[in-house]
């Protein structure tokens, strides 16, 4: 049985956690990996806590159950740290990437994480700069790519561009360029360990 790499995304309805999981899975597939990307479906409301998941592997993935012990947790919204069990099941050698203004040292203490890696990124700030509004999903995608090294920046940009062109067809290039810039900036500014 091949090793399966699992990611759990925490976000709020409307922040694009599901889209980020899909983009990440899709981009990983372009590197030859098998993938799964799926949201946790519940009542779909703007602002409600939501989760999405990825599984990646070098061979076919047949698991169809929930992700319980993720290798990586990605938190799109800092307020979720207060209300959601974001570290639940995180592997002892796992990684958490958080959209926050705080330092990783503070967060490590706050979340009571001893052995895991903690990375931080001001994804909200980046998306405000590049898109003019708060859409932290694509910056977090950039941060995740950097931290996991599953896909290089150039490949991720090229692949995401292809996907976004399809998704936003007819909506002008500003939103696409903004998203790609978000990925780039986040890729280069995520920090921690």
């Amino acid at each position, binding site marked *: 049985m091949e090793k399966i790499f699992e990611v759990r995304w925490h976000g709020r309805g409307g922040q694009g956690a599901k889209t980020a999981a899909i983009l990440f899975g899709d981009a990983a597939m372009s590197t030859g990996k098998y*993938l799964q990307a799926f*949201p946790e479906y519940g009542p779909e409301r703007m602002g409600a806590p939501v989760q999405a998941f990825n599984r990646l592997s070098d061979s*076919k993935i047949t698991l169809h159950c929930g992700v*319980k012990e993720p290798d990586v947790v990605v938190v799109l919204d800092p307020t979720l740290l207060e209300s959601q069990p974001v570290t639940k099941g995180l592997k002892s050698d796992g990684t958490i990437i958080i959209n926050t203004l705080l330092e990783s040292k503070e967060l490590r203490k706050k979340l009571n994480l001893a052995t895991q890696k903690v990375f931080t990124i001001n994804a909200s700030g980046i998306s405000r700069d590049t898109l003019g509004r708060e859409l932290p999903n694509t910056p977090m995608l950039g941060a995740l790519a950097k931290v996991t090294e599953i896909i290089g920046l150039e490949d991720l940009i090229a692949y995401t561009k292809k996907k976004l062109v399809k998704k936003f067809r007819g909506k002008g290039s500003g939103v696409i360029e903004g998203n790609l810039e978000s990925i780039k900036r986040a890729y280069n500014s995520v920090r921690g360990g």
Partner: protein
Amino acid sequence: MPIRALTGNEAMAEAMRQINPDVVAAYPITPATEIVQLFASFVADGLVDTEFVPVESEHSAIAACTGAAAAGARVMTSTASQGLALMHEILYIAAGLRAPIVICEVNRSMSSPINIHCDHSDTMGSREAGWIQIFAEDAQDAYDLTIQAIRISEEVLLPVIVSTDAFIISHSMQRVDILEDNEVQKFIGPHKSPYSLFEKTITIGPLDLQDYFFEHKRQQIDAMWKSPQIIEKVAKEFATKFGRTYGFLEQYRMEGAEQVIIACGSTCGTARVAIDTLREKGIKVGLLNLRVMRPFPHAKLLELLKSFKLVSILDRSVTMSTMGGPVYVELRSALYDAPERPLLVDYIYGLGGRDIDVEQIMDVALKGEQIIKKNKVEKPVDYIGLRE
């Protein structure tokens, strides 16, 4: 062959695009809505030649499909749960008229209580309507089996339901190997109708009373009897051409096993991982993927399972007979003629979308070890993941 990341729904819609049916009449319902929605966009974008009929209910959808199929068209639709239930009376009519139709279905629980998630109660509730029923394990299966279903349906002259598990597959994106459009067209071939309203004056759907009705039903039974041969033939041809193997039943690590777990749909995938882990620990267990529920492969099951000590059945729906789930009830009956039968235990699980994980399936095999040791089943029908 192109590789794409698709959800189960996208995979089925893509298969439908490549099949390019003459008529699709459909009504949206969660979690199958996307299939219809995507297909409608293919129609709007001119990617298919299909006459798309946006009807006012699932009852009308399948009625329009039945009419179109009887008129000699290649016809498809999609639905789930209450939608399939609303189609119920017309399902019998389509099968009775021997109208080849393929439904891309998503298995979702039946209300009440209202719930949009996966179990098999909708599909299992339609199992006596005269349709061939195929369960897809994942998005790849859903894609491949939808294409095969067209051939099966048009050769056996029975309608076919191909289903995926709600959200677990329908909304989960995975890698899917797609065929080229012309490969699909070549595989399914031109639509041939046994009869058509446009060729010769015929009467379809007349009153059929005591003098003939029974004979016509006997023909339907006969078609079901003959369908396994065609299902296997189409699967074999698909495997030869495209390298992916299907068919009635899929055996996984059953060689040298003492006990077998049997399941339908996405749970088979999770069970595979459980079986691998158990085998590493020396527990002799295999998996049988029951891909086709109608016709029920009783003869094959009898032959395959008679020599095992225990068969544990995972049923994602329940009959209200108080005898357990449908797979268990029918398997139990199929094994009646075996001189030495395996012990049987039924596990009802996953109703309303409750998750089933690797550990829970491993538990089934571990419990199985105890049952084999005692050579006695104390609880023939049990539950997984239920708060007692």
